[in-house]
């Protein structure tokens, strides 16, 4: 383990045991995050990005889900070896999460102020009064216009963007080392999304909090993350710096994703979508999970699973032919 690693996930396998068979939602994921880093975990629905996030938080519902293999090392501790009370103490204190749909993650019959204060009284041992004052200060930090009115409101009285700011306030209240933002801006309007991303960026620069963004939105990745991990069918297919991903992707799935984004920088160019559909999580494929949709596939891809290899320093790809992956990709995008 490198000394700077805040979080390291090794060989994580999270399976869901359903009546249709075993769904290998996360099937051998490795990733690491250093202090203050912003990492993007990208993939389409069903790629396993949310299951990875929930596994790190220890929030996989069992049954049907279970972490069957791997290690999750956070601040030097293996989270999988912790018992439930120890995990509960860590969660909310050192490890926070922001969810996609803020309104359904707030208590509808609890005033927002009490909600934020609860986290502070619980984890920081504050009195109710000082916790409420702190909650008000946090909302001010998040540039909420009259914070005291917001504290006195119920979630249904607030907009989605405001509820998301409340969740963020709760998440940062205990000054955690890592925030997991699970599609945290996907349900918001673009202008609100932009302001929330900026706020998160500034907060993390000031406090050194690392953020793991799971998202399907390439724009969010480009704006908020310094490094990206691309997932497909439960596995990592590419891991590199954000700029490298956009300029020189080395996995045909990443290339396919980038070619599918209508981009204001590539005006007038046709979209080149990928053929076919992703495999079902219950399918057991011996080879590369992407081979059926891959434009550069060769016989070996169907038989053997390509390992995640460091193709260039700091750039990993799980493809047998990473140098060929980028054919047909317009570099200006």
């Amino acid at each position: 383990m490198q000394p700077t690693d805040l979080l390291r996930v090794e060989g994580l396998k999270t399976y869901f045991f359903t009546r249709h068979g075993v769904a290998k939602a996360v099937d051998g994921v490795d990733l690491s995050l250093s202090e203050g880093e912003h990492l993007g975990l990208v993939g389409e629905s069903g790629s396993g990005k949310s299951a990875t996030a929930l596994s790190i938080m220890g929030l996989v519902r069992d049954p049907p889900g279970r972490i069957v293999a791997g290690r999750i090392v956070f601040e030097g501790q293996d989270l999988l070896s912790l018992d439930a009370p120890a995990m509960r103490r860590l969660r909310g204190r050192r490890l926070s999460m922001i969810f996609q749909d803020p309104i359904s993650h707030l208590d509808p019959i609890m005033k927002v102020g009490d909600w934020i204060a609860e986290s502070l009284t619980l984890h920081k041992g504050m009195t109710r009064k000082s916790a409420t004052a702190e909650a008000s200060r946090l909302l001010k930090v998040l540039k909420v216009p009259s914070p005291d009115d917001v504290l006195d409101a119920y979630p249904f009285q607030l907009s989605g963007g405001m509820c998301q700011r409340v969740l963020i306030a709760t998440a940062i209240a205990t000054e955690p080392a890592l925030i997991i933002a699970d599609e945290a801006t996907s349900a918001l309007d673009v202008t609100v999304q932009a302001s929330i991303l900026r706020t998160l960026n500034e907060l993390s620069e000031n406090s050194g909090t690392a953020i793991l963004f799971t998202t399907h939105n390439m724009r969010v990745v480009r704006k908020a993350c310094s490094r990206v991990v691309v997932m497909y069918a439960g596995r990592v297919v590419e891991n590199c710096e954000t700029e490298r991903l956009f300029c020189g992707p080395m996995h045909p799935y990443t290339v396919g994703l980038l070619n599918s984004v209508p981009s204001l920088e590539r005006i007038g160019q046709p979209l080149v979508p990928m053929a076919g559909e992703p495999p079902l999580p219950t399918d057991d494929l011996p080879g590369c999970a992407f081979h059926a949709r891959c434009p550069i596939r060769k016989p070996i891809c169907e038989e053997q699973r390509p390992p995640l290899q460091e193709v260039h320093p700091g750039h990993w790809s799980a493809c047998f032919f990473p140098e060929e992956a980028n054919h047909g990709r317009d570099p200006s995008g």
Partner: protein
Amino acid sequence: MVAILQVENLKKHYPERGGARFARTERTVKAVDGVSFSIEPGEVVAVVGESGCGKSTLGRVVMRLLEPTAGTIRFAGTDITHLGGKALREIRLAVQIVFQDPFDSLNPRMTVGASIAYPLKVNRLYRRGDRRGIERRVAELLVEVGLNAAHAKRLPHELSGGQRQRVGIARAIAVNPKLLVLDEPVAALDLSAQARVLNLFKELQHELGMAYLFITHDLSVAEHMADRIIVMYAGKIVEMGERADLFEAPRHPYTEALLSAAVLGSWGDAIEETILEGDPPSPIDPPPGCRFNPRCPHAAPVCAREEPTLVQVSARHTAACHLLTGKLERRPSSPGHPVAALSD
């Protein structure tokens, strides 16, 4: 050339009741508040805006799925604002809609084939009992939208989101409409499915020459699809113009902010963005004057007093902002206010 759709000063207001039992209050939600535009035959017009701006309501009022509060809707020259019964059904053959959610907009107990055949039957496009004719047309439509004839026997739950959306499209084009209203048709789809459905819309438009009213929150999708773009904010049109004009020279500060949020900028560029403070306003109680003024980086007192009207900035480009009438000066872009340190 007669416009396929012409909308003038269209309004849709909803009464909203609130308050406790003996203190009832009645307010008005002005979802669409005085919107005028037209669409030429075969033209693709995108309506762009954030949630609550009235874009979906606009689509539904145009379809006469909702009754307009005021204004007129003309379809190919005919006033359809107050049409009903048979005459309205005939117009509906020419205007069809595709909804956002391919999960909710198909009957889960009807096969794909039955869903697509339904508009053919209710509109009596085939002789009663002409099963072969209908089957042939359904198969043809399925192929047209990139599925195959065998899909007719499937139920919606057996299909992926992208495939379901194709079924919704096949059903909409079954009656050979001249105008398709597309209400966020790709917002619920994954990226690769989204790209394929967008390409399908382009092909269909090319082959069948339909006009589209394409409602979306995503400027890059609008850019990809549209000939002309309408930007809405809080029930009003704030800017309208040809795609190239609007993207290269936006004239309304809201359009500028939307554009800067939509650009695939890089890590280092993040600071140069125009980032708006606050949230879109509530349509119940929009701010006086220009509805954008509380969030506008250039706003001055005049903006809260006077509502700007759409002014012509070039041949087919209009915008509603006091910057264009000389009543307001553009402020130089100021660097973002640094957030107070977390532990002060």
